[in-house]
């Protein structure tokens, strides 16, 4: 009986991921279009790979599954919290050393030279904050539109984590939370920037998300 329940859960999770994958494909495409308008450059994007994990699954799989590993080194993390119909936090995570190239693409101005690749000016932070805001709003907002819900946002913020382990510790501090992971890759001219989007959800919101997704599934598959 437990095995059967587990199989049904797995199947539900697969369908949920399939629907989310489609929703995020659309929203990442829109985010790329927005970035393209800012940079006046064509942006190629790689289709995101969506993984939905409970807090416990994330902890147990993180050392075995390479797709769950964060890039090594310093990370730049842009975060926006959301509440109302769903409650959680969306994090856009990129390796900090790539962000200097990205900021240069945004401003067209040679970046200030720092001895350390993880040093940034206030202007750099402002740019990443605004880009993060636009990308995360597109992803979370389009998810809300597809699910027929409205969310409220906090002010976006950007933080530097000196080691990926610090960020992992930060997002894993509450075991009960579920997480949606999207691997994204933007290629702007010759520069490829690989990142990960973590959408942390409270347990109640995770259940609500499944409920909303099953409603969509019902509408499409009867």
């Amino acid at each position, binding site marked *: 009986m437990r095995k059967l329940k587990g199989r049904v859960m797995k199947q539900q999770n697969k369908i949920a991921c399939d629907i989310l994958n489609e929703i995020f494909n659309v929203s990442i495409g*829109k985010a790329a279009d*927005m970035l393209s*308008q*800012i940079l006046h450059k064509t942006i190629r994007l790689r289709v995101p790979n969506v993984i939905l994990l409970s807090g416990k699954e994330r902890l147990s799989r993180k050392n075995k599954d390479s797709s769950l590993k964060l890039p090594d080194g310093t990370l730049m993390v842009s975060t926006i919290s959301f509440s109302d119909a769903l409650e959680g936090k969306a994090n856009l995570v990129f390796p900090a050393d790539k962000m200097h190239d990205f900021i240069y693409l*945004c401003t067209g101005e040679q970046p200030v030279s720092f001895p350390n690749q993880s040093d940034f000016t206030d*202007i750099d932070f*402002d*740019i990443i*904050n*605004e880009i993060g*805001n*636009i990308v995360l*709003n*597109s992803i979370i*907002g*389009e998810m*809300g*539109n597809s699910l027929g*819900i*409205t*969310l409220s*946002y906090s*002010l*976006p913020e950007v933080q530097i984590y000196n080691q990926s382990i610090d960020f992992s510790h930060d997002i894993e501090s509450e075991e009960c939370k579920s997480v949606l992971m999207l691997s994204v890759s933007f290629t702007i001219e010759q520069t490829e920037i690989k990142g990960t989007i973590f959408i942390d959800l409270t347990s109640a919101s995770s259940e609500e998300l499944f409920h909303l997704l099953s409603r969509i599934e019902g509408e499409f598959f009867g």
Partner: protein
Amino acid sequence: MMKFLLIDDSAFSRKISANYIRKYFPDASIEFASDGEMGIQKFDQTHPDYVIADLLMPKVSGKDMISILKKKNFHNIIVLSADVQKGIRQEIEAMGITAFINKPLSDETMQVLYAKIKGTRYEAAK
């Protein structure tokens, strides 16, 4: 001369938006504010023809600022937001604003805005 007041907490976003406003309204003057509270102060000081404002801002949010401006009987408000949610757009549009535009400003959206402000169809040759 047309006067704009551009309110956004991101300096980067203010720069992008100001460049587009200057491109389409070369004779216009632009005042800047970095949050809703400063926006209201600048509004009282400069009496702009149009306010272009973000929604998600510190101190006083864009939505609260719109309510305050509406109470001052000012309606020429253009919202420029990263928020793509239909529910939010409907809620803000119901407050009686001129336009709700998603970030970033682009030639496409500026042409729509230009036509709204001028009350005419945009001429592609501009």
